[in-house]
């Protein structure tokens, strides 16, 4: 055979080989993209099999950065601003200026139907940084109204260092307890978030929701499981807040592994009241019930320092 003919043959065979390789490569790239879509579809299928209504959940969530911050001290200016307000009696522990306990000289009556906006409208003249907190809800067991601090419009859920807690007595706000996170920093790199369907699936997988449930609201905020020392830096992970049937609220970390976070509102309030040093007659029972884990952790620290 001629060299020229051999070359033609080679060109043909390599052409075929290249086409084959190219096709292989493209399928491989597609596969991985499809994988994620697949995961979403199968989770959605599973949920629809159980008749869990997910029609109201957001479709897709763009990447979001983790944030970190530490509890801020209330400064002289803060106090001046407070003192300039009429009708407040601020009590700041100078040893521990990172929490604020304010008594109102004139209690503010609130109505049964008042929502967060209405409550804040009535109370805003007595609160500093009032626009940095968003409404969480009323707790009748402890007679408090909870507001959580926001960062870039995302709420930092259940953090003792970013809390505005109104104390209610006989339907009137008599005072409040406030802590604030300062120096909130955003991580430079954004993280892929767990997609909404997957987050709901995690709830289902953990047995937190069952058939016929409806997801009525779903929004991303921040949460930290580690609250540590009151002056340490805390890291907050993007966290899904998922409302089921307009009543049950669940949290699922929006990190890629997506894990269900257990939050106990009553325990949280009891702890906050304790660290604020606020004693209320109706809390005596609860305070006793949390005594045990408290003393255990105290012992822990002791052990570490032996």
């Amino acid at each position, binding site marked *: 055979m001629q060299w020229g003919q051999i070359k033609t043959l080679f060109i043909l065979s390599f*052409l075929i080989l290249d086409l084959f390789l190219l096709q292989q490569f493209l399928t491989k790239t597609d596969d991985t993209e499809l994988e994620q879509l697949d995961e979403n579809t199968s989770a959605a299928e599973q949920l629809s099999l159980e008749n869990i209504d997910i029609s109201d959940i957001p479709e897709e969530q763009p990447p979001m950065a983790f944030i970190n911050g*530490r509890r801020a001290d209330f400064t002289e200016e803060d106090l001046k601003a407070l003192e300039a307000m009429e009708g407040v009696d601020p009590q700041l522990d100078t040893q521990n200026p990172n929490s604020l306990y304010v008594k109102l000289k004139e209690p503010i009556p609130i109505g049964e139907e008042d929502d967060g906006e209405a409550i804040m409208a009535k109370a805003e003249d007595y609160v500093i940084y009032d626009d940095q907190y968003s409404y969480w809800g009323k707790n009748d067991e402890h007679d408090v109204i909870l507001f959580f601090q926001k960062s870039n419009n995302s709420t930092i859920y259940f953090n003792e260092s970013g809390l505005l807690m109104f104390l209610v007595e006989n339907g009137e706000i008599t005072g409040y307890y406030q802590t604030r996170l300062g120096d909130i920093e955003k991580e430079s790199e954004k993280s892929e978030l767990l997609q909404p369907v997957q987050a709901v699936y995690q709830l289902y997988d953990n047995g937190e929701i069952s058939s016929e449930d409806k997801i009525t609201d779903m929004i991303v905020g921040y949460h930290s499981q580690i609250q540590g020392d009151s*002056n340490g830096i805390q890291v907050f992970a993007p966290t899904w807040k998922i409302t089921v049937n307009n009543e049950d609220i669940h949290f699922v970390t929006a990190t890629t592994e997506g*894990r269900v976070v257990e939050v106990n509102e009553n325990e949280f309030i009891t702890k906050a009241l304790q660290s604020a040093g606020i004693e209320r007659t109706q809390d005596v029972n609860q305070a006793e019930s949390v005594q045990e884990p408290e003393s255990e952790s105290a*012992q822990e620290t002791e052990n*570490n320092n032996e």
Partner: protein
Amino acid sequence: MNFETLKSIILFILIMLSLFLTVALWNYQPNHDRVEDDMGVNTDVGGLEQTMTDIIQPSNIVFHTSTGDYGFKKSQDEALFYQQMQNWTLYNFEPAKNGFPEGEVMSEVVFPTGLPIQTLSSIFTVSEEEQEIGLPAGNFKHIFFIMDESKESITEVRFVSKDGENAIRAQVQATDAFANLISQHQSLENKQALIKYENKNTRIFIPKNEVIMTDHFISVTPLEVEPLLHALFDDVSRVKKSKRSDGTTSFSDYDSEMIIAEDGKSMRLERALFGKGTFLNNYELISESMAMVNNHKGWTDDYYLFDLDTSNHQVSYRMDYDGYPVLSPSRLSEITVQYRQEELYRYKRPLYDIKKVYAQEEDERKIVLDSGESVLEVLENTPSINQEKIQDISIGYRLIPSNPGKQNIFYTLMPAWYVKQNGKWENISEKLETIPLTKGADQDAMGAN
């Protein structure tokens, strides 16, 4: 340019393209877990990886002879003999009637804690058929090799739980097993007499007569924290460091916090609990915790499995020096791993590595420890000690810093008698009041096990 040259060029391009595509196909990795699989990250804290065979060591080997109970004088001899035993093949497992065998000529291997029966295949050789059938359920702390001298054979191997309530028997298949055991029974010059202490929870053998030991001067080097952070946190770039009001240092992200003691010699990691799950069984507790520590090569000195607390889902590994456990303070001598459901909950460990023996052997002082007999007598006559609550009695070392209250690199390992009650090891040398060297030393606050 003629047609042939053009063909050559096309051919060349095609070959290159095929090479390129092949390489691309091989190297294409989906970019899912970008951080965790980062191979360049150093998670090696500088220790070793261990297997279950290494980590499970007996606390005692007792030879029950017609003239009394004996044990090895030197721990090295004991370790050597135990190594021989590990080659013996066990078969024919079946449940047996409970209780400790008495009055027979037998050898007893005692472990520091009750072990799940599955660990047997790591300790001894268990025949493959036997493993396929599956071993009978249970746990054991004592292994008895019961011998019949007239038949020159080991009639039975019996595994008995801590309280004697659970027993399993098996046969041993090894040509030299009987000869080995009986020769140990007969050559008593490297042995010492032992005395038995028994209550309803435990069965202990301690040296009957005075024990001559030495103290040791050691220097330690701190472990690097960085590799540990990489091993224990998902994404180290996210971890924040802060000083706590009690002087400790905290590293935390959103679900884990690692606290390093003020002197930097120990740490405690705690993780938040997510969701629900089943609990690990005892065997999984050992294997999971070992894998976790192996993962960052965390066996920085000699550590042995020491305590398995089923109700708290907790495993402890104790530091060992020269054949004796270091029993206090716990935070400097114990690796503790606790699980909550299937997940790591707490991990406590010392953060140092014994670097070298600081002094020459001749500088070490001879320490004479009380006889076991007098220890038992003192325990009996000490009102603060409830006989029924005694879980263990042992000789162990206490780590004494050369410079109390300061950053230390020099320590003394001081031998002493210890008693374990309510899960805590207590130095009883003050109760014995015969060891002048530790006199006036501060009461040792021991951590919970």
